[in-house]
């Protein structure tokens, strides 16, 4: 049977079948951060185990780092303790660490690609569900728990059951003001937040082919929000061009050989899949979430749906969503007043996201009573943006310009919503309490839509603003 990329990469990394029926899968690249790794190192110590392949693990800090000032020690003593712990672990076990003084620190899913660590055909694991991001390169990338981090540290392997593969095939080009974020929100709306259970998603077809690497990363990033543990795009010239010249990319001479191999692992035109889903994005409009999971999304021109019209297993969550959000079924989402605008997160904090946001706010001012922050995904993204003067554009418009980190996506640092604030957010999760206030409310949308909402003080159709 002609294999898809997933099956080829899986086979290549399979050490053996385990007695429990799983595969022992070798992990080519292991990324760690400060929140989910300390317990794993502690377990290693307790068992007297070493890190088997320390050169295959890379560490950084993103979740708890403050974004206002990166000067140590942090005012939050718990954050300071976590920071010291990952430094100690990296040193003790011989792991490369990109801390805040490296100039290369940032959200783990932003720095992997920008350093050229993330490459096609790899297996990648990280104690973070958005590890699926790296699939944009044609890698197989899984989010894992802390006990699994321990396994990878101790053996560079995971015990895993092979998932099924669903091809998501799209046709059509995106219209003006419509972005890859809108595509993935549409896919999750269509297939549901449980639709991907048991599957890995292959994103294929005209729409993904014409996307940049950063756009593909935003799509793959949110695979997990659709229940799929991983998602990928087949590597092509766009992928190779992005990687070439990056710090850890194969060097001259080797690069040509790498390219040949990368091409060979892509799914062929006759590759087979366990399932196929087709989507035409020609008429796709900017998307906004109205509820408490990323599947509860509509076009900005649509009205909030009525739970009564939904399937029984979605109705209860929809009713809970309306109650939490304080929204009414049948009313438009456009015009919803916002208090906070957050441009950042592993989904949308890369240079192209910041450029697009800056283009929209240039020469404008954010609405009174709106708090707006831009949090670049990495120190390198921040430096590039400053070189282009984007920081000034944002600052003139009234945005706060911050240091790199996860920030208000999950509010483990001081960046939080207060009370019942509503946030227009370029992040990936609108779960209850996600942005730091148990009553807080999140509207997920593209960075351009966030920028437009900040200017108007409400949800607007970005196509009418810029």
């Amino acid at each position, binding site marked *: 049977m002609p294999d898809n990329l997933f099956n080829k990469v899986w086979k290549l*990394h399979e*050490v*053996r079948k385990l*007695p*429990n*029926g*799983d595969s*022992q899968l*070798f992990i*080519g690249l292991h990324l760690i951060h400060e*929140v*989910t790794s*300390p*317990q794993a190192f*502690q377990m290693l110590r307790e*068992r007297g185990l070493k890190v*088997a392949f320390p050169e295959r693990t890379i560490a950084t800090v993103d*979740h708890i780092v403050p974004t206002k000032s990166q000067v140590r020690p942090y005012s*939050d003593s718990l*954050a300071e*303790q*976590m920071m010291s712990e990952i430094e100690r672990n990296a040193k003790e076990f011989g792991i490369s660490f990109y801390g805040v003084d490296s100039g290369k620190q940032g959200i783990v899913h932003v720095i992997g690609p920008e350093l050229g660590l993330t*490459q096609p*055909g*790899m297996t990648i694991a990280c*104690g*973070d*569900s958005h*590890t699926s991001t790296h699939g944009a390169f044609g890698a197989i990338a899984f*989010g*894992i*728990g*802390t*006990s*699994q981090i321990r*396994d990878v540290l*101790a*053996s560079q*392997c995971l*015990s895993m*059951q092979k998932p099924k593969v669903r091809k998501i095939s799209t046709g059509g080009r995106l219209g003006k003001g419509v972005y890859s974020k809108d595509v993935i929100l549409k896919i999750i709306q269509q297939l549901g937040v*449980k639709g991907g*259970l048991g599957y890995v998603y292959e994103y294929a077809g005209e729409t993904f082919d014409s996307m940049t690497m950063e756009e593909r990363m935003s799509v793959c990033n949110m695979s*997990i929000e659709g*229940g799929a543990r991983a998602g990928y795009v087949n590597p092509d010239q766009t992928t190779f061009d992005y990687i070439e010249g990056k710090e850890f990319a194969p060097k001259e001479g*080797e690069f040509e*050989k*790498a390219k*040949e*191999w990368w091409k060979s692992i892509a799914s062929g035109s006759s590759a087979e899949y366990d399932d196929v889903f087709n989507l035409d994005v020609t008429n796709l409009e900017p998307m906004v979430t109205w509820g408490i*999971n990323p599947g509860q999304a509509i076009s900005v021109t649509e009205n909030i749906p009525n739970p009564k019209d939904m399937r029984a*297993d979605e109705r*209860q969550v929809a009713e809970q969503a309306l109650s939490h959000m304080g929204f009414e079924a049948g009313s438009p989402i456009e015009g919803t007043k916002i208090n906070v605008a957050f441009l950042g997160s592993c989904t949308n904090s890369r240079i192209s996201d910041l450029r697009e946001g800056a283009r929209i706010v240039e020469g404008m001012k954010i609405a009174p009573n709106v708090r707006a922050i831009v949090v670049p995904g990495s120190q390198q993204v921040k430096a590039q943006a400053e070189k282009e003067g984007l920081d000034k554009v944002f600052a003139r418009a009234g945005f706060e310009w911050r240091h790199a980190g996860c920030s208000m996506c*999950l509010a*483990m640092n001081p960046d939080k919503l207060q009370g019942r604030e509503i946030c227009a957010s370029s992040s990936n*999760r609108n*779960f*209850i*309490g996600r942005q730091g206030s*148990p009553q807080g409310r999140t509207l997920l949308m593209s960075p351009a839509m966030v920028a437009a909402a900040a200017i108007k003080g409400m949800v607007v159709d970005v196509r009418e603003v810029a």
Partner: protein
Amino acid sequence: MSNVTQVAGKAIPVRGNDIDTDRIIPARFMRTITFEGLGEYAFYDERFDSQKKPKKHVFNEKKFSGASILIVNKNFGCGSSREHAPQALAKWGMKSVIGESFAEIFSGNCQMMGIPAVIASEADVKSLQDFVEKDPELMVNINVEEKKLSYGDMSFPIEIPEGKRQSLVLGTWDTTGMLVQNLDRTKKLVKKIPYLNKFG
């Protein structure tokens, strides 16, 4: 590592689809380098208001105290990969969880901790939730070995992937030892992976 052939105890219904790990343990409680003490933060924001006054939530109901089996609905544990979620529930007292379906990272994390996450039909799960609601003292028995759940004189079949079932029953659910044992084979495989060998 212990054999987990069955889990018996009082149960607690946690109703609702798509209950995410941010709700199970809000991120601010993960500012820690251990899993100790997480039990008191399980479902914290659903159990307490901003003045720390208890709200209406099954975890606050006295009649369910001492329960060790969670009965949940669809896609439980979706969202973040944080093992802090099952760790918090385990520290609270969870020894097994039965549901209509689970997010995969969550059920995988449970397995890694030796906690059976088992699946049953919507009808069986909902009727068990109703039964336990009415009779919280009801003893529920999850028989992992025979893939059967029983309470009173009732029983219904449960599902768990065969490999996971065997590992629990044989007490081999902690995978580290098994993976480390194969280090020589792993090193041999490394020699065949193009990107680890200059693409030669």
